[in-house]
């Protein structure tokens, strides 16, 4: 066997990188098809009500336009995700502001805004609800009925299916309660949602779009057009950022453009501008988490009750699965003798919330990691010591009863992260300097985990398939529906194939995802691509090699040149060669959806993030001045891409914690511009020190686990823990803006001192035993 260079673990050039730096990469809005028209969407101006009339201003030459209403839908008027509650176009009622009602198309893009404004819609308004609390009251029922009124989904997760014995609450040394909230967050990919659709009566629908999940769009089109899957072709174009924001939404905009294409008889491009994208498309679910924790005076967690509620917006979309991930991550990387999580996704008259990197976990982890610091304070331990006394370890069981077979060493990760960040010395230094300084500095951390792959039985249901074929030149070509949107899918999958086949990286090619050509390897979500799809690529590559060897064209010991020659000879003899690999559930993975019990994820990434902050007591602005991110994600396939993922996630987490606030008025997002929705700029990011601990996982390609979502979980709680250190104020809600800090620091006399902190003295914390 010839010695092969180590491709996995090195950092070859991104596959599509050259086209990107040249400005040649073709994003959807860069593409023009012959005879192409442009589309636009007429939306509701109210959050909830009955449509009473639609009129068209005669000043517009409407005969030049194609106008689509729900009556034009050949199949079901429904965008299918998990439930069938979400209309493609509203008919009689609207349930949120910006709900699509009509679609317009015209050959000239510039006339569309005036035409949209010239459609007059009148409504009989109904009372709308905007908060989890209003939804819980059920005074206004806007979704479902009976038990399910206003409730998309509920879960009850109890360790060992046992309720917490009353005795624990009666005898615990401390009972610590807390409530924590997180706001909506816009994905803010720099390329807005956009598609181009074509329709042909014989061949069906073709949609080109910026997206994560081509087969989700196929599924949506099948229902809207009442067509078989083979007549719904979906092609991913170069995608300018996604972060979950192009997981479920392309099904909506793709169906809309395809309806316009069918009725107009032209290809139709429908690309949102920033204001429309921000106002009308999905965001991260706002959340409220309530903790009640029994703790011993030694700092051992005895039992935890967690009530986790998320605001799903007006339709169910992906809320049940977002809630699921949030529920499973709510207990964190700790051992709980007893734990009960009650979770619910509630309906409001806000545009539907959807997928965003982390998918429920950043919300529940924020709450837990703030609550752990509160518990530490109550018990009289440092945040570090409290966590050390409760970490999950190898051989331990998670809240779902999953046995942790793979090595877990949170103690070591914490030690290493605190050393690398010089945590203890800085804590002392800031304690010493803060009393005489206008700038209050602080350092804090969060310890957390993130499951890789679909939750529970999801991967088994997906049943993903990967293929590798040979090009006429004898190069292996990967056929997957996994999409590249910046995170490095193309590159890492080609590395895995190259390493497996012992070929140079640049000899592997990967097809642009086109459902007419590639098999369904599942959606590009849930930190699953490196681990699950990567493993399938590895197996398909092995199978390709076996076929070539057993055909007699290739010896076991081959050079890249031999491989190419053998491939060409094989093709000359047999015509084509396509190897495949289908997902096989590991034998030791079981999940019980009914009882929320079992192997929630095949593997977990583990991490400790440390934030340093400065709070200016003149401006009340908090900023992150230094950041350390240490994680164990299995084998790192591509160090530059992996670190880039972490750095980008940390920056989004800084935005989530300190800058990005969605302002709603009567159900409308009022700051739907980059001018007034503030994401971190190059001047706002601190030095981000990224380090990895590498423990290869048996489940992923060459030992890789998931990485994409992990860095979204840790920054917000680490930053607020640091702000608590800096100011002695325990903030419980994000985003935390200067006005919020101002409010707390100035409202009460002697603000900023320990004595006023409700974590110690207020009504929330109660001692169970005197």
């Amino acid at each position, binding site marked *: 066997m010839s010695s092969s260079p180590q491709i996995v673990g090195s950092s070859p050039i991104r596959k599509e990188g050259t086209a990107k730096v040249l*400005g040649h990469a073709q994003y959807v809005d860069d593409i023009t098809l012959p005879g192409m028209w442009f589309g636009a969407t007429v939306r509701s101006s109210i959050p909830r009500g009955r449509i009473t009339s639609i009129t068209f201003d005669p000043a517009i030459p409407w005969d030049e336009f194609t106008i689509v209403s729900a009556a034009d839908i050949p199949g079901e008027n429904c965008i299918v995700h998990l439930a069938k509650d979400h209309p493609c176009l509203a008919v009689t009622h609207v349930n949120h502001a910006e709900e699509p009602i009509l679609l317009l198309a015209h050959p000239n893009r510039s006339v569309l805004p005036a035409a949209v404004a010239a459609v007059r819609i009148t409504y009989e308004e109904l009372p709308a609800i905007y908060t989890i609390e209003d939804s819980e009251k059920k005074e206004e029922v806007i979704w479902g009925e009976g038990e399910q009124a206003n409730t998309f989904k509920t879960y009850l997760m109890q360790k060992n299916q046992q309720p917490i014995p009353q005795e624990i609450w009666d005898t615990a040394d401390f009972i610590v309660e807390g409530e924590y909230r997180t706001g909506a967050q816009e994905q803010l990919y720099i390329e807005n949602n956009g598609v181009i659709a074509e329709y042909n009566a014989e061949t069906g629908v073709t949609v080109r779009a910026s997206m994560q999940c081509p087969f989700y769009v196929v599924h949506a089109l099948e229902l809207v057009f009442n067509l078989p899957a083979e007549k719904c072709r979906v092609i991913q174009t170069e995608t300018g950022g996604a972060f979950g924001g192009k997981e479920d939404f392309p099904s909506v905009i793709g169906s809309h453009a395809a309806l316009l294409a069918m009725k107009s008889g032209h290809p139709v491009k429908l690309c949102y501008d920033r204001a429309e994208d921000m106002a009308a498309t999905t965001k991260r679910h706002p959340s409220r988490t309530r903790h009640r924790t029994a703790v011993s005076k030694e700092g051992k967690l005895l039992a935890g009750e967690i009530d986790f509620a998320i605001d799903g917006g007006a339709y169910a979309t992906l809320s049940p699965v977002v809630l699921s991930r949030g529920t499973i991550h709510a207990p964190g990387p700790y051992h709980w003798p007893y734990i009960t999580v009650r979770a619910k996704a509630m309906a409001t008259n806000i545009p539907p919330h959807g997928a965003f990197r982390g998918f429920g976990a950043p919300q529940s982890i924020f709450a837990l990691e703030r609550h752990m610091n509160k518990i530490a304070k109550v018990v009289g331990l440092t945040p570090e010591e409290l966590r050390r006394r409760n970490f999950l370890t190898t051989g331990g069981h998670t809240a779902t009863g999953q046995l942790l077979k793979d090595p877990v060493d949170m103690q070591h990760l914490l030690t290493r992260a605190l050393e690398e960040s010089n945590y203890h010395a800085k804590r002392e230094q800031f304690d010493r300097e803060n009393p005489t300084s206008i700038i209050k500095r602080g350092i804090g951390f969060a310890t957390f985990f993130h499951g890789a792959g679909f939750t529970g039985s999801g991967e088994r249901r997906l049943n993903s398939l990967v293929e590798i074929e040979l090009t006429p030149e004898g190069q292996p070509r990967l056929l997957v529906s996994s999409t590249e949107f910046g995170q490095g899918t193309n590159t890492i999958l080609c590395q895995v194939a190259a390493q497996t086949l012992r070929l140079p990286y640049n000899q592997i090619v990967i097809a642009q995802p086109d459902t007419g050509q590639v098999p369904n390897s599942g959606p590009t979500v849930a930190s699953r691509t490196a681990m699950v799809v990567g493993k399938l690529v590895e197996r398909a590559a092995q199978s390709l090699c076996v076929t070539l060897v057993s055909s007699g064209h290739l010896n076991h010991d081959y050079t890249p040149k031999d491989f190419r020659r053998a491939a060409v000879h094989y093709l000359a003899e047999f015509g084509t060669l396509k190897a495949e690999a289908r997902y096989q559930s590991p034998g030791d993975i079981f999940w019980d959806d009914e009882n929320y019990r079992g192997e929630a994820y095949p593997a977990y990434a583990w991490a400790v993030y440390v934030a340093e902050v400065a709070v200016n007591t003149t401006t009340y602005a908090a900023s992150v001045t230094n950041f350390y991110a240490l994680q164990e994600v299995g084998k790192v396939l591509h160090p530059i891409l992996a670190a880039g993922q972490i750095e980008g996630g940390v920056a989004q987490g800084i935005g989530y914690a300190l800058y990005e606030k969605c302002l709603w008025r009567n159900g409308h997002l009022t700051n739907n511009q980059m001018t007034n929705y503030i994401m971190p700029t190059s001047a706002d990011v601190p030095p981000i020190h990224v380090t990895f601990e590498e423990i290869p996982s048996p489940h992923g390609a060459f030992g890789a686990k998931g990485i994409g979502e992990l860095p979204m979980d840790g920054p917000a709680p680490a930053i607020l823990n640091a702000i608590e250190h800096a100011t002695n104020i325990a903030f419980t809600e994000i985003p935390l803006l200067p006005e919020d800090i101002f409010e707390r620091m100035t409202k009460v006399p002697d603000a900023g001192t320990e004595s006023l902190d409700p974590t110690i003295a207020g009504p929330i914390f109660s001692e169970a035993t005197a």
Partner: protein
Amino acid sequence: MTTILLTINSQQRTIEAPPMKRLLDVLREDLNLTGAKEGCGEGECGSCSVLMNGDLVNSCLVPVLQAEGAHITTIEGLASQLAEGKKLHPIQQCFLEQGGAQCGICTPGMILATYHLLEKYTQPTLLQIQEGLSGNLCRCTGYTRIFNAIRAAALAGVAE
């Protein structure tokens, strides 16, 4: 319609366009130079950045009339054309090698902002880099690897 004369990537062009048409739309629609992207349409994100008479401008905020007689450089004009294909400009090469491009949508604007920065400061400090790029938003990278790319380009002596 107005007739506008301008120089784009060293080529003289004559454009027939409404005088208030955005330079961005002229580049993308009339000249098929789609490297400049529209991210926000209000001068916040910088993904439509081009160089106009050596200044970094948001082409979504420039009416084409204002570009009369101007010298415009877009991302398409940065690499040199060789017989065997495009040869990357050193800044492009550094973005590629350092992981400065992820999804790629902000990359053309970032590279032109870097070009402008390195003309101003041949060896910029981190603060100068951060300020020089603060008009160009990136949601993927957290900027760290873009900073690395710029430092590498500065070391390569791009401005000389």
